[in-house]
């Protein structure tokens, strides 16, 4: 980089091309240079950003990124001013009349910003990014400490959240917090909850339609909850479900219930495996061939054997009980899912 690069004096056609080729983090860096550069990026960017706008918090810092199905492209980090390393020489940018210290994450090439009030920083920068790229926040990752992000995102846009990810398996949520996530977080695509619910937690309402639900602590999920769920993929890493409950679920599916179900996994600590197929043994076909099931949400399941059941419309499900107690139901064929 010896000679200057007067980018903004390049004719429109190649300038548009350059802007379209640039990565989101570079576009953010340039747009923070001046009002003019910001308006040039906003006006000339023609190709939509590859990925969904994701805001995350891990109890240490906020991060704004664009997520695709498999990759994360961070564009900005938001830290408390106290966490600014003294050894690093920071620069300042002017945002909403404030001087904000920034430095570059040299490994991944995006800007880290430091604020006295990092929540204010997150909100300011989220407004900046959503305006710059004309997008809404579609994914949030939060912890017990930052459940407020659900209400904040809901209030700042009409577009519903697609993915909500509640982190920190060691946290214990209160009943109010758990209900808030299940009821108020309208994540149509994927909801993942790692923290535990409070003891004796129950959810008596109907689940809203959800494509993928992953619960790290699923002991509270009852068979009634399951029969009411309209999901594509349901994973309960722990559960209190019995083999009789799974039998009920299978009968429900055979009679047309849970019509979108493609993948179900629950850890079932019940030795009475035979009761899974009570009243169904005549229709069960044992298959010992190796089969692979690729879930539309990224999980790949290897089935060394299974019990096939066919619904009246010809759709087949395979039931497989793994050695570790995981009860798996897959519905063939694998679904094709449109990921952004």
């Amino acid at each position, binding site marked *: *980089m*010896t*000679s*200057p*690069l*007067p*980018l*903004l004096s*390049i*004719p429109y*056609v*190649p300038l548009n*091309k*350059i*802007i379209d*080729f*640039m*990565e989101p*983090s*570079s576009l953010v*860096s*340039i747009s*923070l*240079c*001046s009002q*003019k*550069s910001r308006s040039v990026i906003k006006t000339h960017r023609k190709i939509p950003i590859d990925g969904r706008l994701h805001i995350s918090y891990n109890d240490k810092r906020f991060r704004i990124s664009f997520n695709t199905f498999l990759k994360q492209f961070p564009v900005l980090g938001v830290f408390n001013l106290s966490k600014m390393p003294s050894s690093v020489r920071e*620069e*300042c*940018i*002017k945002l909403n009349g404030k001087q904000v210290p*920034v*430095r*570059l994450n*040299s490994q991944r*090439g995006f*800007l880290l910003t430091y604020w006295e009030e990092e929540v204010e920083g997150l909100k300011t920068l989220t407004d900046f990014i959503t305006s710059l790229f004309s997008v809404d926040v579609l994914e949030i990752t939060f912890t017990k400490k930052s459940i407020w992000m659900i209400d904040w995102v809901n209030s700042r846009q009409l577009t519903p959240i697609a993915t909500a990810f509640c982190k920190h398996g060691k946290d214990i949520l209160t009943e109010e917090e758990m209900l808030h996530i299940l009821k108020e977080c309208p994540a149509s695509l994927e909801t993942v909850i790692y923290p535990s619910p409070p003891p004796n937690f129950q959810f008596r309402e109907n689940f809203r339609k959800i494509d993928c639900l992953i619960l790290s602590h699923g002991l509270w999920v009852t068979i009634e909850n399951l029969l009411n769920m309209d999901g594509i993929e349901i994973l309960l890493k722990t559960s209190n479900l019995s083999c009789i409950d799974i039998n009920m679920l299978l009968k429900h599916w055979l009679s047309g219930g849970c019509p979108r179900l493609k993948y179900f996994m629950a850890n079932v600590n019940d030795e009475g495996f035979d009761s899974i197929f009570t009243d169904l043994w005549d229709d069960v076909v044992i298959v010992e061939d190796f089969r692979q099931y690729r879930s539309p949400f990224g999980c790949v399941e290897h089935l060394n054997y299974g019990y096939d059941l066919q619904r009246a419309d010809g759709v087949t499900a395979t039931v497989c009980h793994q050695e570790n107690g995981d009860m798996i139901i897959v519905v063939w064929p694998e679904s094709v899912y449109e990921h952004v």
Partner: protein
Amino acid sequence: MTSPASSSEVKYLIESSEGNTFDVSGAALRQSNTFNAMFLNIGADGPIPFTDYNEATLKKVFEYCEHSVNEENYSGPKHQDDLSKWDLNFFNEMDQKMFIDVINASNFLDIERLTSYCCERIARMLRGKNTQEMIKVITLPTAEELEAKQKVEEKKAAAAKKVAEKAAETAEKTETLEELPVQQLVQTTRNKLTRKYLSFSNE
């Protein structure tokens, strides 16, 4: 010297901003949609003047065109790893000024492949830069420079205002002078002249 024949053997003379001319093959030139639209069917009687661009830039552009004569139709830029060694050397030899010059010329000549590759390379150059580095690289004024510029503008505006006010005052005085009766005006002028004469004769 030049002909509209489609044979790749045909050479065309190109004239640069310095007035220098050099040969380019018809096959290379035909990668330029601008050339195709302007000269392909009618031919050119003398050197084709691309006089907005210097010789070094034009030679670089047509060096690329000559090299990619036999390449397949352009279908989007290749991944960095898919670029040939020749392509990599070609781009690595250019500094940023040359990139801008080549982009400008290639954009005018409408050579899509070269324009896109150059644009992609520039986007690559801007990866992993913080805002201050961006400001330096793309030669934008910094916030401090903008502030200083604004102060200068304000000072200039204030000075211009003062000048305007003075001019208005003078105009007012002139108007007052013009409004004086002719006799009085003659007397005032005489007085001035007398004073001047007296001061001169005293010396």
